């Protein structure tokens, strides 16, 4: 049964991938990319990677798509026709050779789903067996345990990656737009009563759900990253329906920048606390009298840091991209908040 779903999803994925290459309407291509991500999220669920599926659904099908649409809104949404470039023999050659090499490489791989594959017998059993005694018996989600504690350093790196992206996009789009390309009809959504009425109850519910995902990550799929994205989705919905101006009245550029940094600092702080208390960086054992409590506290702090940074970064990105069509609301806001002591 699962194998059947697997095959059907893979076939759908192949079809959407081909459609992505062929579509010249960028709007449609972006939407199909969103579908591609959603299908892969389904496939990840089938393959038991529920946390990855959750993240892919919220990031790939959610935030990435929104960012791409925002980009199209301030640029162009049709790929130009260039017949001579439609088919590229060179590219096809490169791809075929690479693909053939990779398929050659698969020939010594363990079969799909093989329980005897080396990776299931070396490190994974340790994580599965020792998470209850080394981390905390109340954290049944092994992925969270590995993510936040055993490989917490990677996750700190991951948080820094997303922080880096925010800094770079702020640097690129934070200034005034060189030209005003505001599209007619954009921003008129706010006038729509039905949208307002239906969004009003949803926004708090989405934010509540984000908090649930944030704090439920120890027990089930979820955690700081997914929660941050969902929280940002709530804010994005608010900004879409009520206009970015009202969203920016709450989250000025300066405040968002501070929040973006705050999450990384919380994470780093939890790590440095380990050093100060006499252990190693990111050693949570020492954060409480009992190592299990310490691990729990450490994971909580770290996930909180990730959640704050991700939510702030995603909101920042959205406001920067959509604000691009208008004459620099961002810079003004920054200036204002700088002016007031």
């Amino acid at each position: 049964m699962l194998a059947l779903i697997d095959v059907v999803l893979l076939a759908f994925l192949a079809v959407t991938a081909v459609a992505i290459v062929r579509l010249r309407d960028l709007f449609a291509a972006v939407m199909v990319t969103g579908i591609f991500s959603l299908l892969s999220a389904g496939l990840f669920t089938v393959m038991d990677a529920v946390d990855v599926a959750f993240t892919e659904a919220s990031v790939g099908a959610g935030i990435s798509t929104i960012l791409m649409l925002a980009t199209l809104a301030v640029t162009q949404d049709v790929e130009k026709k260039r017949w001579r470039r439609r088919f590229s023999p060179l590219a096809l050659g490169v791809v075929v050779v690479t693909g053939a090499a990779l398929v050659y490489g698969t020939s010594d791989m363990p079969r799909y789903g093989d329980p005897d594959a080396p990776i299931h017998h070396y490190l994974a059993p340790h994580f599965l067996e020792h998470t209850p005694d080394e981390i905390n018996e109340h954290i049944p989600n092994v992925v969270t345990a590995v993510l936040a504690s055993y490989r917490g350093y990677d996750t700190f790196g991951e948080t820094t990656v997303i922080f880096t992206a925010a800094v770079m996009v702020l640097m690129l789009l934070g200034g005034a737009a060189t030209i005003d390309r505001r599209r007619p009809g954009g921003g008129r959504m706010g006038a729509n009563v039905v949208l307002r009425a239906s969004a009003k109850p949803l926004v708090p519910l989405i934010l509540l759900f984000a908090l649930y995902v944030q704090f439920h990550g120890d027990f089930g799929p979820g955690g700081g990253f997914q929660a941050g994205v969902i929280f940002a989705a709530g804010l994005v919905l608010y900004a879409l329906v009520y206009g970015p101006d009202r969203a920016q009245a709450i989250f000025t550029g300066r405040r968002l920048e501070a929040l973006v940094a705050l999450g990384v600092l919380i994470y780093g702080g939890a790590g440095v606390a380990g050093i100060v208390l006499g252990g190693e960086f990111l050693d949570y054992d020492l954060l409480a009298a009992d190592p299990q409590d310490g691990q729990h506290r450490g994971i909580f702090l770290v996930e909180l840091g990730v959640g704050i940074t991700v939510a702030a970064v995603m909101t920042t990105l959205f406001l920067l991209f959509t604000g691009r069509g208008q004459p620099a609301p961002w810079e003004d806001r920054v200036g204002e908040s700088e002016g007031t002591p």
Partner: protein
Amino acid sequence: MSVWLEALSWLSMLAGSLVLLVTGLGVLTLPEYYSRLHATSITDTLGAALVLFGLAVQAGWSLATAKLVMVMLFLMITGPAASHALVKTAALHDLSLPPRRRQEDGDAGAD
């Protein structure tokens, strides 16, 4: 679970799938924007609701059912709102019916 409940759940899911299939066909075959929207808007209301109901019956009285009901509520709010927003935006951008159809309308009016 009794046979009746089982049958109800499967019937509901099958009906839901049928609706989804028909709406998919509708999007492909219907001639223009507004009529296609008729098809799609049914997807996230009737189609999804039937499938979710079937799943909820399968799950019985559990946390999963509560979650499914939440999902259904969410879809019931967002689906129609999204369809509405799409139509409204199309109307704002003066997207009219395709030329052929409008001409026929015009001809009819002239008579």
